[in-house]
């Protein structure tokens, strides 16, 4: 769905991506994460076509046609919706611009948005939900989600994720998440990508990642040859986050070995800055 080839991009003189390559197959749900300032949001803007590469190319699946941006739903922190417009008028405008027959109000039904209200008078959560609904109404083939869903409470985040699941079920939709609550998307994500210094530092299917990152708690260090990416030192015990974990390493470790969820795994990578 997305093929990024030899991408170069930076703000001013500071390069963020130099010769960056990345592919996302059609229908995949992918999480791109990493330490602050690593260029996650920039990457999403480049994919969305909001920013242009200095060098290199970003190509989309031919099914997106001559105007790929019409098939891309970009949900970012900058809600580009008309402030002084009434909600119902905005919906009509959006539908006519995108040639969508019907507005899917599954999400806004739950938020008590008054359709005669002006956009600027809505709460942050209501605006976000309106924005999400408008974008999902266009039935994007590629959905890009930046941190915007952070503004929603737990209930609205659940509604949003339920909607994404419904759309995934309905048609092949490729999704790239950036800066989201990992717990929300734990069972949606198929692939996890960690960026560092403008390149891909880690890129694994989620089930492989769960096999390869483990936690061991130890009072006297780790045996020789056990690689870890992050360590939390406590009074008498330390937590070690082991990566890459293998059967060979399992044999070296005498005590219990803990499996980890997505949040624990990403936190360990970021805490140790991927060692």
């Amino acid at each position, binding site marked *: 769905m997305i093929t990024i080839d030899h991408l170069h991009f930076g703000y001013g003189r500071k390069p963020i991506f130099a010769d960056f390559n990345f592919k996302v197959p059609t229908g995949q749900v992918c999480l791109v994460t990493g330490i602050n300032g690593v260029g996650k949001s920039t990457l999403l803007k480049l994919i969305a076509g909001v920013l242009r590469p200095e060098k290199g190319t970003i190509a989309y699946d031919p099914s997106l046609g001559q105007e790929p941006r019409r098939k891309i739903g970009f949900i970012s922190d900058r809600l580009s919706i008309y402030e002084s417009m009434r909600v119902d008028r905005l919906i009509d405008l959006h539908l006519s611009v995108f040639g969508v027959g019907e507005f899917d109000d599954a999400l806004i039904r739950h938020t008590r948005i008054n359709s005669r209200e002006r956009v600027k008078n809505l709460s942050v959560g209501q605006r976000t939900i309106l924005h999400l609904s408008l974008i999902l109404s266009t039935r994007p083939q590629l959905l890009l989600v930046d941190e915007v869903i952070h503004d929603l409470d737990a209930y609205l985040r659940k509604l949003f994720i339920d909607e994404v*699941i419904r759309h995934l079920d309905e048609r092949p939709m490729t999704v790239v998440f950036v800066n989201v609550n990992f717990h929300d998307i734990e069972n949606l994500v198929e692939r996890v990508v960690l960026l560092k210094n403008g390149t891909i530092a880690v890129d694994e299917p989620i089930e492989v990642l769960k096999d390869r990152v483990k936690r061991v708690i130890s009072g006297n260090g780790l045996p020789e040859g056990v690689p870890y990416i992050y360590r939390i030192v406590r009074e008498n015990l330390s937590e070690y986050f082991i990566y890459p974990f293998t059967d060979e390493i399992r044999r070296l470790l005498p005590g219990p070995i803990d499996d980890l969820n997505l949040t624990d795994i990403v936190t360990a990578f970021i805490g140790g800055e991927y060692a």
Partner: protein
Amino acid sequence: MMLTFAHHCTIIMVQMKKPLKPLSIQIDAKSAVPVYEQVKQAIKWSILSGHLEKGDQLPSLRELAAMLRINPNTIVKVYFHLEVEGFIEAQAGSGFFVKADRKAAVPEARRLFEQLTEEYLARAVALGFTPEDITAHLQKKAAAEPDSQQLQEEAHDHH
């Protein structure tokens, strides 16, 4: 089939669908066992334990993905594997149904039984119980379970 009165009082015949049985599927996000494997095992368990019977309908892909809040691709994979392994079958236009009766599923039940036994034994031995203690205790417990005889016979028939 049942008779229903619509509000304008004409009698219409409504084909009543058998209600779906609720499934208990717990997903452990921490587990290194992939989500699709966890869901597959849970459905197999429902079939092997007799909660789901031959001919029972399974939830649609959409419904199960929404209920478990997981990627619909995962459910597609689960149903595909269960179909290949002969536990369920797709009926065009109407969904997925349990295919395996308990007898056909005996080898899988056997495998699960071995797994449970190993886990149980390892923990009982770790607590200091001897093989004699364990055997005696199991015999006493099993005698009190009304259902135990049946599965044993089925397993026996299979061999």
